[in-house]
């Protein structure tokens, strides 16, 4: 499932995938794959992304089950 909230949060911070990748310390491919829903990041990576985007884990990664 695509992670649109992460993409929107990144765009709000005026960051490109490459910028976020550099801050977090991963490759751009990894960020792209998380946003497109093709890779499940570890908790550590989620926390780093949240810190870089000034968001909480809930705001970026929590999904309500219907």
């Amino acid at each position, binding site marked *: 499932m695509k992670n649109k909230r992460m993409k929107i949060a990144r765009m709000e911070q005026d960051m*490109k*995938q490459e910028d976020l990748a550099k801050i977090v310390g991963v*490759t*751009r*491919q990894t960020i*792209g794959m998380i*946003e*497109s829903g093709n890779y499940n990041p570890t908790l550590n990576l989620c926390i780093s992304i949240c810190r870089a985007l000034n968001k909480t884990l809930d705001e970026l990664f929590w999904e309500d089950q219907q």
Partner: protein
Amino acid sequence: MKKEFINDERDTSQRRKVGSEAGQLLMLGLLLSILVQQYAFNAPFAQYAAEFICFFGASLYILVRNLALGNDFLTRREKSKKWLIISSLVGGLTMTVLMSLTNYAQYGDKHNFFSLSGTIVIFFITSTTLMFLGFSSIYALNKKRQIKIAKKLDEEENDLG
């Protein structure tokens, strides 16, 4: 309450790690076997051909798979030029030592100090150049694939849907 099945990531990751370590040990064993048979026992190629094919086949597989996936497996980010030079020198030096040992074992009685030194210098220059060309080609292919992936990511990044 319905029990939800989730993948035990710790278990999976440790299983993969064990598999990876076993693979690395096997590769090291194959390489040692080739070197010992070739240099210590002076065995004919037919005797260690299976190990040779397995080792270089596995190495080729690792190379091709990483190239196809676009993994930055050769260099660590921005240190590419330094990495290329160091790898070429180390590879060239290793090849020089191996080729010099073989050469000395076969033609040692015909060499004097100058011819032996000259041979070693020629071996070093050719093997380092070959290593540099080889690594540069792999690096160029790796970069080409990464640029292709970056273009695809650009398209996805610009797609606001």
